[in-house]
Every structure is written in C-alpha cells, then in structure tokens.
C-alpha cells in the first residue's frame, strides 16, 4: 500500500490492544456470577458431614469430587466460590451503579449551576471525604444491620463522593468549551445541555471511575462480611468464607485461602481494566 495519499487520515482504531490479562482475571467473576448455583458442581446448602474438611485434589487424600476441598460442614469450596462470585458481582455492580447515579447527578448539578447549590453539595462531599471510608462502611453496616442490601447501600454511600468530585471538575471544564457555550447561545435548557452535551463527554471518566470502584467494592464487601457486618449465612460470600476458614488454619488452610485468591484476582482485574480504559479513552495519560 505504497500509494496511500498523504493527508488521508486512517481512522484511529479506538481499542487497539485487547486487554487479555484483566479480561481473563475477571472472567470467573462474570461467568460464575451469572451462572451462580446452576453451574456449581455441588449444592452449597447441603451439609455433608461425611466429607468435612476434604483437602484439595492436588494434596494427599484429595479427590476430584472436591476440586478445592471442602469446609467444616462438608460444603464444596469450589461451589462456595462460585456462589460467592454471584454475591460479589451483584453487590459491586449494583452498589457502584447507585453510587455513580447519585455522584453524577450531584456532580453535574453542582458543576453547571454553581452558586449556593454547588457550595452546599461540595461541602457535603468534603465532609464525607473527611471520614476513613472503612470506618464509615463499618459504622453504616453496623447501624443498618447485616445483609446484602446493607452492603449495597454502604458501598453507594461510601463511593458517591468520588464520582461527584470528578464529574463536577469535568463539568466545569466542559462548560467553557465552545459547543456548550454555543448551545447556551442557541437557547438550550440546562437539562438538555446536561443530557446532550455534558453527559456524553463525561461518559469515559464515569466508566473509568466505575471500573476502578468495582474492585474496591468487592474489597469492601468482603471486609464487611468478614467482620460479620455484611452478608450473613445462609447466603455466602468470599469474605464470609475467609471468616469461616479463619478458625481452621491449622487443619484446613484451603478454606480461608482460596476465597482470598478470588478476591485478589478480581480486584487486580478491575484495577488493570480501569487503567487500560483510562489509557484508551484518554491517550494523554498513557504510561502513567
């Protein structure tokens, strides 16, 4: 293709490289999270006292029936991990989506209206950022009582200020741009400007923050469940599994070990995917 005319720009390929590593790391969460108990080899509600504390298959005495061993109640570790993936997926996606909805709304409102509303909203954000997030989560979860909904609410409450801050900052910058100014001159209403001109340009930041927060949300969920303030039995979650396995470290290390590996994989995957998205969507920050 030597005859390519100079000046004819090849359309920039938006997503050049495929981020294999993050996708592979996140695949189990998505696949098992959607499949849930239907793809688990064993039912996790069935106790089997004949098969308690079975070691994983690669250890002496292990068998293929319990790939990653079993817990003190004879439940299959691998199946628990699969069902726990669903808990993590639901909580992190719903929690981050709620946080995003509130944060984006507040950020756009504060950024485009300025004045007293902006002041008030940003002071609330400052106030909340003045509390250690984990402490806030522990307090909220403790106050609301455990359970899936509590954890989702906790994540939403703890995470929305991050969105609000970033979205407000970007809104302020966007408002100075010609196309927004022109829309104002053309007589567009504030809602129309927000919907047509601001939101589409905020989308990439929202997606990047959301992806990074997904990992953080999985971490918060597991920490809360570990402390007994999150997901409660008979539901299961990775944090709860670690808490269960804590008492059996000398006899059955696998019960507490594998869920931690699952959490680390998921958080790493989300962080890498978020970094990748940021680089792809905003080439100026590449290699940071």
């Amino acid at each position, binding site marked *: 293709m030597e005859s390519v005319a100079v000046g004819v720009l090849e359309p920039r390929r938006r997503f050049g490289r495929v981020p294999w590593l993050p996708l592979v790391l996140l695949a189990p969460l998505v696949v098992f999270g959607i499949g849930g108990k239907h793809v688990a080899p064993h039912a996790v509600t069935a106790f089997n006292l004949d098969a308690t504390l079975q070691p994983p298959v690669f250890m002496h005495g292990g068998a293929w029936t319990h790939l990653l061993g079993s817990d003190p109640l004879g439940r299959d570790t691998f199946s628990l991990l699969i069902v726990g993936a669903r808990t993590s997926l639901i909580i992190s996606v719903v929690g981050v989506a709620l946080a995003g909805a509130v944060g984006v709304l507040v950020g756009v409102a504060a950024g485009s209206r300025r004045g007293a509303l902006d002041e008030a909203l940003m002071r609330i954000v400052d106030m909340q950022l003045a509390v250690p997030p984990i402490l806030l989560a522990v*307090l909220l979860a403790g106050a*609301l009582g455990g359970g899936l909904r509590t954890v989702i609410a906790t994540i939403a409450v703890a995470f929305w200020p991050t969105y609000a801050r970033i979205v407000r900052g970007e809104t302020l910058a966007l408002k100075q741009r010609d196309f927004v100014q022109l829309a104002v001159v053309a007589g567009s209403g504030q809602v129309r400007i927000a919907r047509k001109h601001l939101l589409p340009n905020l989308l990439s930041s929202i997606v990047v923050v959301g992806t990074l927060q997904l990992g953080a949300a999985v971490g918060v969920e597991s920490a809360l469940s570990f402390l007994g303030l999150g997901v409660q039995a008979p539901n299961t979650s990775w944090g709860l599994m670690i808490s269960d396995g804590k008492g059996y*470290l000398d006899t059955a290390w696998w019960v507490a070990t594998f869920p931690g590996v699952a959490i680390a*994989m998921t958080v790493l995957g989300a962080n890498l995917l978020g970094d990748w998205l940021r680089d792809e969507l905003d080439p100026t920050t590449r290699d940071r």
Partner: protein
Amino acid sequence: MLRYLSIRVALGLVAVLGVTMITFVGERTAGSPVYLMVAPTSTQADIETMRHKLGLDRPLVVQYGIFLRNAAQGDFGTSLKVGVPATQLVRERVGATVELAGAAFLLSLLVGVSLGVVAATFRGTIVDRTASIVGLVGQAMPGFWVGIMLILIFAVKLRWAPVAGRGGISHLVLPAVTLSWFSTAAFLRLTRSAMLDVLESDYVKLARLKGVPEWLVVCKHALRNTLVTVTTYAGLTIATLLGGAVIVETIFAWPGIGFMLTSALYTHDYPVIQAGVVLTSVAFVVCSLVVDLLYGVLDPRIRHGAYR
C-alpha cells in the same frame, strides 16, 4: 492563611459532627443494648424500666442534644458493658493503636519508597518489572486476608510469631506488616511514577551534565523533589491506616481502638462507639489538615491565600 486555616478547622468540626450524627441515629436504629442488659426472663415492664434508666425512652433529638452537651465537656458516658467511662477505655487503648499504626506507617514508608526509587532508577529492567508487579498484586490483595495468610504461614505453620495479642516486638510484626501491606504497595507505585517524572526533568539532566555522580543525582536531586508527592500521600496513608486498624486489630485481637469499636458494635455499647468514632474522625481531620499545610511548606509554589 488564617482565613484558610479557620475555614478548614470549621469544616473539620462540621465533618466530625456529621459523623457523630450518623453514628448516633444509626446505632439507635440498629439495635438496643437493653436486651443484653436485662435478664432473659424479664418482663416488658423490666425492659421499660431499663430503657428509662438509660434515657433511651426520650426523643432522639433530646438524646442527641444531651450527648453533645456532655461530649463538649469531655464526657462520652459510661460503657454499658463494662461500666467504665468510655473516655477512660479509649485512653487505655489509644496507645496500642498508635503503636500499631505508627509501626505500619514507618514500614510502608521505608519499604514502599525505597522499592519505588530502586524501580525508577532501574527503569525497564527485571528489578523494575518485579517491583511493579509486586505493587499491583499487593494492592489487589485484601488486607484482612493477607493477615490471615501471615498467621497461617508464620504463626501456625512455622511458629515464628504469636497468633494474636499485644506484647513485645514479636507480637507487633504480623499485625504491622498486615496493616502496612496496602500502603506499601501504594507508596511503591506512587514513588516510582513520581521519580520517573523527576528523572526526566531539566534540572536532573543539568546535574548529570555537570558530572554529578548518578547515586547523588538520584538521592539528592530526584528523591528530594519526589518527596512532595510522597508527603501528600503520606497524610492519606495515615487515614487509611486508622481505618484499616479497625479490621487488622480485630483479626489479631490487638487491644486498640479498632478492636474496641467492632466489639462495641456487636453489643450496641453506644457510649464506647461514639467515643471511638469521634477520636478516629478527629485524628483523620487533623492529619489531612497537617498534610495540606506541609504541602505548602514543601512546595512554595502552592499558596494557601485563597480557599479552593
């Protein structure tokens, strides 16, 4: 400057007030300590008497008002569980938390910053790659799980360190490493990235052209200018450590504020929860203020003339 300072202090006070309000309302909707304080066989009348004795039958606003009035005088009430003033409990335990968080802070600063410097100096080599991977993976591992894995390896299998409790340095090692884990990884990544920026700068190039030895360029010219970024993050780290202490202390039964807080949450010991929360959030607010001020000292280009 004074205006900036007073606004910041006022905002901090509002934040702490907000936290007490959330905690106050939250803990009272979550559950009542009354049921843990009366005999299982007691009648409804007994329960009501106990509620009245604790003042829990009054309107929430009145209760909060009384709490604020007493708290302003340094009285957070008496622990419902152990019958000791909450402030005394906090005073007894604050030392343990400071010891743990301090050790974790030093550890993460030393290890994280030096690894970051090494990684940036040997950019692109196997050393850099390894350090970067360690940083990424380290940040992804949940702290409480790292703690349990450390217990599994060093306390249960190798028996090098005790499983839990507070005592000499051997008791401190595992909880401190656990608490510092995330921050170490964060310092590493941050220092590396800041160092890379500085090493590209004109003054570093000039120093090299002048013939300054490379180790001196790294230690003096580059590292010093990286410290501004590191300091900002250090303030955030103290906050992260204070929050993380809640979980780490619970795992290792470390008798600090965090362990006290989670135990009090389970028994709905209102006064102890409030005292612990106020102390932690005040510490958090003070830390972030100090860091913001330090930032201006370290980098004179930043002026605190106007807020925002």
